[in-house]
């Protein structure tokens, strides 16, 4: 006899998202996970399950972000060689700013330190690395370590007050420090004789290729690698142990402290790490442009960067990259528009901040929450006459049958409540074991269906001939004895039956 191996396609389409792409693996493959050699991590979050309705084996990708990252970055990498010189340059600038923003996101979003000294760190390290190259003859491969070292030292200084001050106060402090940096650099005549900028910095791009197509492509390649490194740093810090510590502090500082998590130290560590990374990016910045000028410290630049991370969504790397892409495209791509560009950027900023709770990347979650809320509100309104499910509660119940079971139960109870009359009770007292009228039968049938916990039972007390009865309630849990309900003694079994009946009616009316 032949049996269909696979159910019909329409039958497999069940559940909340029937068209979601799932793999249909065989046998043990369902639970198989590949991990890179010598590591204990999985790169992709697969989930194996049996579909609760079709009972088919399924594997689905729970977190699809790696796919999007690959698509986006890979697409950029493939597209760039075919773009015009101007857009290759824009792509490279995008990569540099995205790298800065990813690291800044680490400080603001993950560590929760509202620092505005990002560009100050970048600029200071860029100046230091450029000066080391131009005046001390440092070869270019060593510029990035020098930048990182300067960033580390500057980060250490900046981090000192970060745990003492909070929010706006620290933001102001860092803004002040950035301003102090700008002015002091502009005053060091020995450092930058011409117009406070250092020119002729050595670079990984051969000087013959400067502003030529191969040079632009190489510059883009370098910036792309920089962005990948920044994302790696973000990923390593944010999802490993340090990120976990920081998350506890974000959720509840007092509690984190109470369970012995030194979140201040974790924040401090992340801040210093990120500053060091920003320093390296600063050195790259100087190499990329072959010069460094005071414009890097300007408030407008900082505000533009702020617009980027805000549009994408504070605290997520994908938000930082997405926001950077949008703002850089508007700012550098539409350069013909003049001051109108900034107005467009601010318009995007306002629209995003007014509509999205957490930037563009938070829109999906926000929309889902909104839809769930509206759904459960409607459900609650529909069942106002006798459902049991509340707004916000229905979203927590995954088995929707439970919702309808409660609705049915509530209506049944309401109907039964209205049927309880003194006559009915008198009827039961007269004949506890039957012959019953229809109304009483319905009531007793409902009682019989009740769940085991707190179900009543009758206990015989004393010797068989002269016994009396008491009422007890079952615990409903194996190994847990029943408890006595009260200390009344009933001389006959019928009276005990009736007492149980009254107790149940009382429970029904009180529910």
């Amino acid at each position, binding site marked *: 006899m032949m049996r269909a191996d696979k159910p019909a396609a329409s039958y497999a389409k069940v559940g909340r998202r029937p068209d979601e792409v799932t793999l249909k693996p065989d046998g043990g493959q369902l639970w198989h996970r590949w991990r890179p050699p010598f590591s204990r991590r999985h790169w992709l979050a697969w989930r194996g399950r049996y579909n609760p309705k079709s009972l088919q084996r399924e594997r689905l990708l729970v977190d699809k972000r790696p796919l999007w990252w690959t698509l986006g970055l890979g697409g950029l990498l493939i597209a760039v060689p075919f773009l015009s010189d101007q857009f290759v340059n824009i792509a490279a600038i995008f990569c540099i700013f995205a790298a800065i923003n990813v690291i800044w996101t680490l400080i603001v979003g993950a560590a929760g330190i509202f620092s505005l000294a990002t560009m100050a760190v970048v600029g200071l390290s860029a100046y230091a690395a450029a000066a080391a190259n131009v005046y001390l003859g440092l070869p270019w491969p060593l510029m990035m370590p020098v930048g990182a070292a300067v960033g580390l030292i500057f980060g250490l200084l900046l981090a000192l007050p970060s745990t003492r001050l909070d929010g706006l106060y620290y933001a102001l402090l860092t803004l002040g420090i950035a301003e102090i940096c700008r002015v002091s650099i502009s005053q060091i005549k020995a450092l930058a004789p011409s117009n406070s900028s250092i020119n002729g910095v050595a670079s990984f791009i051969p000087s013959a290729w400067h502003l030529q197509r191969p040079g632009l492509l190489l510059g883009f390649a370098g910036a792309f690698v920089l962005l990948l490194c920044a994302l790696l740093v973000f990923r390593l810090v944010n999802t490993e142990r340090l990120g976990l510590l920081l998350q506890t502090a974000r959720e509840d500082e007092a509690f984190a402290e109470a369970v012995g998590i030194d979140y201040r130290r974790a924040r401090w560590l992340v801040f210093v790490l990120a500053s060091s990374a920003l320093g390296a990016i600063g050195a790259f910045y100087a190499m990329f442009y072959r010069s460094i000028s005071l414009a890097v410290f300007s408030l407008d630049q900082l505000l533009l960067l702020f617009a980027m991370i805000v549009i994408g969504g504070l605290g997520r790397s994908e938000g930082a990259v997405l926001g950077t892409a949008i703002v850089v495209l508007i700012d550098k791509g539409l350069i013909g528009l003049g001051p109108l560009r900034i107005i467009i950027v601010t318009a995007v900023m306002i629209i995003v901040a007014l509509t999205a709770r957490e930037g563009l990347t938070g829109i999906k979650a926000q929309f889902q929450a909104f839809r769930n809320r509206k759904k*459960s*509100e409607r459900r*609650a*309104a529909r069942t*106002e006459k006798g459902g049991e499910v509340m*707004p*916000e*509660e229905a979203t927590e119940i995954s088995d929707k049958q439970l919702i309808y079971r409660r609705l049915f139960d509530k209506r049944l109870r309401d109907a039964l409540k209205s049927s309880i009359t003194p006559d009915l009770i008198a009827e039961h007292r007269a004949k506890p074991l039957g012959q019953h009228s229809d109304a009483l039968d319905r009531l007793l049938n409902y009682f019989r269906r009740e769940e085991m916990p707190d179900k009543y039972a009758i206990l015989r007390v004393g010797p068989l001939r002269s016994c009396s009865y008491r009422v007890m309630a079952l615990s409903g849990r194996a190994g847990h004895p029943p408890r006595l309900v009260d200390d009344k003694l009933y001389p006959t079994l019928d009276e005990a039956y009736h007492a149980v009946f009254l107790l149940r*009616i*009382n429970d029904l009316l009180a529910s």
Partner: protein
Amino acid sequence: MSGTLLAVRGLSAGYGPLRVLHDIDFSIAPGERLAIVGLNGHGKTTLFRAIMQLVGWQRGSILFDGKEIGGTRSLGEGRYTPGIVRLGIAMTPQGDAIFPGLTVREHLDCGAHAKTAWRDRTRRRERVYQLFPQLDELQGALVGKLSGGERRMVSIGRALMSDARLYLIDEPTLGLAPKVSKRVIEALVNIPLEGKAMVITEQNVALLSGAVSRMMGMHAGRLRGEVGHVGLA
């Protein structure tokens, strides 16, 4: 104006996935003084906050003087509260002194914030001072610096300053010494109702017995004690 002032039907409310109130039904007639008695954490405060639309979500009908102020809602807590206050419900929140930096006098004026009441505020203040003579001497003192009992009086006085027809007094004796508690309750009992109504929540039944016209128990988010039990002698 007989009948019911406030009719609550099937009111459930809570915060997020947590459900605090379960299908509350009760009503109150003009001139009544109702006490709701129950232990901490059983939903007395949530009941008041649901009437004022200050909870996370709620469901069920609340008719105040024939006007629906309930309904199904989640999020947007506090948005409609000023409107409900203007309809004529005054609530004194749990704890005390809602504006610690204002003086007693300014605090009372806040209660008479509605335009019509504002013109009349001096006379109303005098009435409050008659009820709580202690406050007369403390007119200029910051509420944050007063003792617990005095603050409670200010809080109740503020409710009395408004044109409310329904007073919701939440735990008037919370954290007070027994002697002071008695005085506060006495003052509440002495407030002439004249067609208005008052609901008081309290943990201590003994304090209120005999002082109110009706008493209801509250347990685990349900009202108990008002419902007559059939057949149980």
